[in-house]
């Protein structure tokens, strides 16, 4: 989902860009091995959520660019909604104080 959101916000990106972005946003809290990103990308691509093509990176290196497909966008929306719901429920649990209970 993080990958999808990144692509949604930044538009087409290459693997390195995505990895950097995730690191930046999470404030370097999620410093996982960047390599693990690639199997995830592949899975998403095979599911049709993202598409990829070769392009040139900022410093003119050959790089593979991933972009969100329509299906991916739909998936992102659905997952966002799901997440927001889940988050809201969890939030309510944390907010609930003992005296609130009937």
């Amino acid at each position, binding site marked *: 989902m993080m990958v999808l959101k990144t692509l949604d916000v930044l538009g087409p990106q290459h*693997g*390195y860009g995505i990895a950097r972005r995730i690191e930046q946003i999470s404030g370097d809290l999620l410093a996982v091995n960047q*390599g693990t990103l690639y199997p995830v990308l592949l899975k998403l691509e*095979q599911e*049709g959520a993202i598409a990829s093509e070769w392009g040139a*990176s900022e410093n003119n*290196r050959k*790089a*593979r660019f991933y972009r969100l497909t329509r299906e991916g966008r739909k998936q992102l929306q659905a997952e966002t909604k799901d997440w927001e719901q889940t988050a809201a429920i969890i939030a309510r649990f944390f907010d609930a104080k003992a005296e609130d209970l009937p």
Partner: protein
Amino acid sequence: MRFLRRFLTRLANSAARRTQEERLREEIEGHIALQTAENLRAGLSPIEARRQAMLKFGGVEAMKQDYRAERGLLFIENLLGDLRNAGRTIRRMPGLAAVIIVSLAIGIGVNTTIFSWIQVVLFEPMPAVRGAANFLMVEPRAENGGYTGASWLEYHDLQSQVPALRDIVASQMVAFNVGETGRTERTHGQLVSGNYFSALGLKPAIGRFIRPEEAERPGTELVVVISYDYWQTRFRGAPGAVGQKLRVNERELIVVGVAPKDFQGTMVPLKFELWVPATMAPALLGGTRDLEDRSIRAFSLIGMLRPGATREEAQAEFSAAMAQLARDYPEASAGIGGEILPFWDAPRGPQRFLISGLAILQGVMLLLLLAVCGNTANLMLARGSTRQREMAVRVALGAGRWRIVSLVLSENMLLAFLGGGLGAAIAVWGTTALRVAPMIGAFPILFPTRVDEFTLAFAMLLGAACGLIFSAAPAVHLARLDPQEGLRSSSNTPPRGRVRKVLMGVEVGLAMVVLIAAALFLESFRSARQTDPRFRPEGVLLAAYDLSGRNPDEASEREFAARLLERLRSLPDVEAAAIATNVPVDLHGIPRRSFTVQGRVRTEAGQDRAISNTVTPGYFKVMGIPLLEGNDFAEMRDKTAPAQAIVNEEFVRHYLNGEDAIGRRIQRRPGSFAIIGVAGNSVYDAFGEPAQPAMYFSYRDLPEEQGEIHLRTRSGKETALTSEARAVLRDLDPMLPLYDVRTFSQHIERNLYLRRIPARMFAVLGPLLLGLAAIGIYAVVSYAVARRTREIGVRLAFGATSGRVVLQIIRENLGAITGGTAIGWVLALVISVRVMTKGGVNLPVFLGVPAILLGVATLACWIPARRASRIDPMAALRHE
């Protein structure tokens, strides 16, 4: 949906592997280059920058593995790899693989052939008729257990009185003379009820079928439906056949339609060519009273259950209906009940016999297949232990247990399916061979066996089951392997092969059971054949004539028989001649007739019945049956003597308590007969049967249209009489065919054909199984020996003679073999005592078979052992 899409892409990726690999490599490179550039900007030295980038990226190889697992279908790729590997392994051992595949193929092929036969008899008893297995036989049955058939009037009553059955269909088999006079040909057909074709759900190939109303009024509808084969051979398949005239029993019938391909009538495996409305019976069969007389029970009935009805309901209704009929028509129906039987249990025809025989055969064959599996398991196990090292390496390199098992499985399954495929081919050949069955008696027989998708599925299922069975042991054995152990112990310290020996023992035991069964079967068959039939079939020629259709009266029938006999007896080569209505040992049986005899009071209800045969004087002389008391029948033209009968010994014992029979009177339709003689017992239905009471009547008193000519030759060459007999008949009546000419021995052989099939199969199988067991033992011993080359070399180097080595090897293996033999022997003994109640234990079989088996087993041990003992000790020690 998403899952499916991913699956398909992964499947596609499995195919296009290389380009993907390339792409990943480039991507990783790109990634690391970007990270390095970033690090450089952050001020690291180039080397450090790259190192950090690599660190950050993580394990490249591990990630590649993940990536690959994600990209393709690991399971399928592994499977394909296993199969490739299995193919290579099998190619490396062509001899062994060939033995395994061929023995499996034989086992599976034979099983499939039998299965296809059982399947036909059980599930598709009538070719071309859909759902034929749902038809039930509706069989009136007399108290003495004989299935009498139904009369035409009875059939009409039953149609409305058994509501659980939808359409009851009546048919009667008839032999017609078809063609112009002088060139007539005997063709078999059925007289059928009007609903025959519609109830069977058939569609004509061309034309139409018999209409229901055409089987209502007697004798007016001159129509005939012909079989597809008949249409092809006689009319060359021309559509113009419909509407043509066919001369049947000297009546012109119009061909109205052709039955669908493969349809052969309702008495499978008999094959009929013509179907005529039952109401034509009087016209075609010389004014027979079939249609009015309730005591002429000439029709067989079949019917299909109405949806929702059960066989029990049908049985209850049928019994009630028969009881009512017995009350209404005591004359014709007293004491006749009825049974509803499934098709495969039909009292006439060979189904019933076939099914039990085939079931036994199938059981034996499955045992055989199990033995083959044991063999294969043994071979694989032996091979498996030589491959311990290979497997240990695989495990050490990280192959999981499951991967090892799947590797072994895929090898064995490949072998099993190859065997199954070849087996299916054998089954196709076998079923075709079975179809070509000879004529039995006067009726053409066609077994409608064939191989269809069910049979093939069965073959493959068997193959798969075999593969699983014989790969289980080696797979488990190898998967449990401890890699360290496996690597350390090289092949010169063999583990004790206990499992292999047990398997070998089991196999030999199985072979023992089957061989004894085969031997007992053959022995009982042979002894049945050798029992004295109490008549002399040698030197007797049989031939049939048929006056039906000429509509003869009794006087002309008698006169014809008398003149025929006179002419035949005047032939120089003929020692004796006679005519009879029935020939013993006929597949279709000899009729039983009800009677009462003077001096016997029957206490229970119903009637006495005994085998009845109508013969001319001289019959006993031709047949070589002794006349123990009294005289032969009076001459054919004798008009003064009263009606006569001759009975056999068993008749006197059973019905007259052994008292003097001569002079007593037998009452039966159409009159009263005086017993003038007592004949010896002889065989009537089958060799080895218990003595049956029988009555003989004279042709003089009861002339018949049909007759079986019996000729005893002087020279002993009965076939030489054929042309002379034909000439005599042609002289008497040029329009009459002499048919079904055969020697008595041929007659017996043909009728024993069905019984001979299993006997023959056993005769082939016994040696086959022995061979398989021998191969099994040979394989195991030679593997064991090969793996002990070094040990044997040491022994030889220390001065052991080759004889001692051989002896030792044989002794080691013979233990398991003897154990298996003993267990199999005891098992066979128990079975034989349980199953074969009569006649004790067959000693020659129970001693001879183990002797042969042990002999062959020893030989199978000896050959590889001897080869091993010839090893050059130096070469053996240098080995490895």
